[in-house]
């Protein structure tokens, strides 16, 4: 028995040692092999599993073949990317050649000098790219990022629950308030949610409400903003308690577990809730209109090149490839992403079609957020105003005047 234990122990130790050291060796050997055969392009993206599959099977191979290159895909979430690039820049050893980044997390990359100024390569942007996507990558009149994937939130609702109470998805503010009231009345608990975590998630929703009322979020005490916050003060009473915890991630859980019957999220939610979660009763609803117009925030991803990238030439080639008609059509048909080009079309899977239609409808009314250097102040002011007005019940005009002054002060600095 003792000798058996010894044999097992020795085996485990050997396996571990081999795993640790042979692993390093094989990795080095593989790198050497690749060096001889083709260059390696390290690409950072933040994608879901099914999206990675499309990239690896349908998008990367053509580029690899055409350029004799091996793409090494890196899954890095937007906030983690900033810290990783920071560490690599400080170490003067950039390990990533090209990044795609959520356009809600660009300011820090620019502020910290982590990405290359691409102004002189502006002509690489094809003429067919939707014009409104370009300013998203501009900061202080310089181009730091190139467009590749527009995105927009869509409204999702629980069809079964709506049918149960004879409700229809709201098409305007009055109907939204009515739906929220009815559901709270029937269930004793709010079932409509907005993303109310009082951070960037909430800012997106606030931008939409303010613009729907004809206001300017950078002014904040104009007539439209006052209308929006007055409406939100009224609506908040009937919202789900989950509102305070609802962000781009948790909203999926609330919709899937039926604690929320109506809420907005980015289209990736459809894969999580409908495809993986098999909740086919979660349907898309068209954007509702405010007193003045429909409006959504233009989100999505852009392409950048980290400072110190060791493969700039290849990175530019890959950038062009991502913006090409051929690639954009793959992204439309295989993933249901809206196209960044006016000439890219694709047929999505049947189950995705209603959601894709909702995305395309929302894209038509999407407006980019302004890239201002005092963005952090705007972000905080909008959310603090919501907290004071909707949660603490303070006077709308007085509160907005206070925060408008803070924004104005930051603007004039």
């Amino acid at each position: 028995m003792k000798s058996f234990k010894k044999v097992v122990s020795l085996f485990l130790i050997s396996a571990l040692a081999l795993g640790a050291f042979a692993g390093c060796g094989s990795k080095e050997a593989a790198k050497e092999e690749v060096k001889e055969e083709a260059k390696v392009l390290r690409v950072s993206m933040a994608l879901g599993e099914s999206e990675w599959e499309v990239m690896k099977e349908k998008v990367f191979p053509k580029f690899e073949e055409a350029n004799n290159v091996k793409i090494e895909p890196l899954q890095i979430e937007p906030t983690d990317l900033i810290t990783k690039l920071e560490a690599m820049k400080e170490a003067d050893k950039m390990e990533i050649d090209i990044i795609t980044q959520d356009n809600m997390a660009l300011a820090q990359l620019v502020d910290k000098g982590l990405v290359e100024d691409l102004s002189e390569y502006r002509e690489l942007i094809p003429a067919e790219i939707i014009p409104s996507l370009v300013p998203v990558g501009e900061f202080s009149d310089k181009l730091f990022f190139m467009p590749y994937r527009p995105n927009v939130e869509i409204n999702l609702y629980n069809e079964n629950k709506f049918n149960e109470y004879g409700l229809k998805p709201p098409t305007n503010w009055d109907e939204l308030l009515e739906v929220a009231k009815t559901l709270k009345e029937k269930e004793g608990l709010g079932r409509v949610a907005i993303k109310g975590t009082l951070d960037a998630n909430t800012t997106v929703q606030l931008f939409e409400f303010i613009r729907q009322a004809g206001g300017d979020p950078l002014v904040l005490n104009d007539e439209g903003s006052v209308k929006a916050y007055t409406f939100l003060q009224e609506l908040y009473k009937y919202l789900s308690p989950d509102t305070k915890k609802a962000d781009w991630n948790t909203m999926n859980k609330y919709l899937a577990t039926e604690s929320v019957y109506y809420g907005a999220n980015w289209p990736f939610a459809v894969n999580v809730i409908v495809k993986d979660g098999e909740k086919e009763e979660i349907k898309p609803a068209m954007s509702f209109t405010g007193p003045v117009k429909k409006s959504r925030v233009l989100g999505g991803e852009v392409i950048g090149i980290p400072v110190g990238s060791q493969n700039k030439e290849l990175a530019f080639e890959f950038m062009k490839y991502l913006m090409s008609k051929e690639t954009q059509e793959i992204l439309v048909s295989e993933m249901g992403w809206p196209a960044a080009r006016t000439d890219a079309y694709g047929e999505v899977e049947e189950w995705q079609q209603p959601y894709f239609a909702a995305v395309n409808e929302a894209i038509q009314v999407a407006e980019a957020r302004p890239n201002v250097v005092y963005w952090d102040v705007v972000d905080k002011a909008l959310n603090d105003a919501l907290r004071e007005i909707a949660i603490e019940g303070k006077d709308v005009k007085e509160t907005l005047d206070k925060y408008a002054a803070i924004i104005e002060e930051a603007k004039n600095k």
Partner: protein
Amino acid sequence: MNEIKKDKFGTVVNKISFPLLILFTIATLIPIYILIKVSISKPADVLTQHPTFLIHNFTTKHWSKVLASGKLWPAFNRSFTVASFTALFAIIIATPASYVISRLDKKVKYVVILSLFFTRMFPNVGIALPISVKFIKWNLIDSNLGLVLAHLIEQLPFITWILVGTFETIPVDLEKSAMIDGASRIRALISIVIPIATPGIAVAALYVWLNSWNEFTYALYLSLSENTLPLQVYYYINRGGFFQTATYATILAIPVALITYALQKHLKSDSLGGAIK
């Protein structure tokens, strides 16, 4: 009168201790059960307003998906290798160090222990960036060695402190007796002290292994193309994969259970019983 009160109190304690133990065990096991349940249930059983406690519609779909994805074994292998080597190196380095510290004069001993803990006074997130910068310069990013070294930074002070406590409980007379019988100091340490300290060393090794197995911050900074298991869980949490998250979290817990079970025979409270007559 006091004796009667004490007896009554003792009886009450005896009567409620077992039910309390049962309650505590249930409270500990329920979250683990729910985790496993989610990983083997059909979505309809989980994604509902009132999910049932018991498993009604069993499925291996989520496990099949995770096993077929090709992402499990590399992450598992990396986590297992890093955790095992971290525990091994930590024991090799900390055991002699702890023994020496435990035999120092009291005042000196506490200064040394306090200085060990001084390195742990800063949150990981705060020191992870400068450490990562150094490691990137040394080509240690995305390597097991880099992660082992990073984990040792965090674990060595703790394991040393645990083992100092262990060695302190071993009477010096035992070593002296062995040396009177002709053993050298090293021989006395290897033949007398270490065997008695085995339970403590096992606990410390287990503690380090678990901490390394679950470590997240350094793994996040020092991994690019190869994830550890906690990073895989983080990925699915971020991407909203309810079932993959539960499956990976269950997988993350399996080796922990096995290693704890394997080491439990060393975790005896009366290991020093009968050492000195």
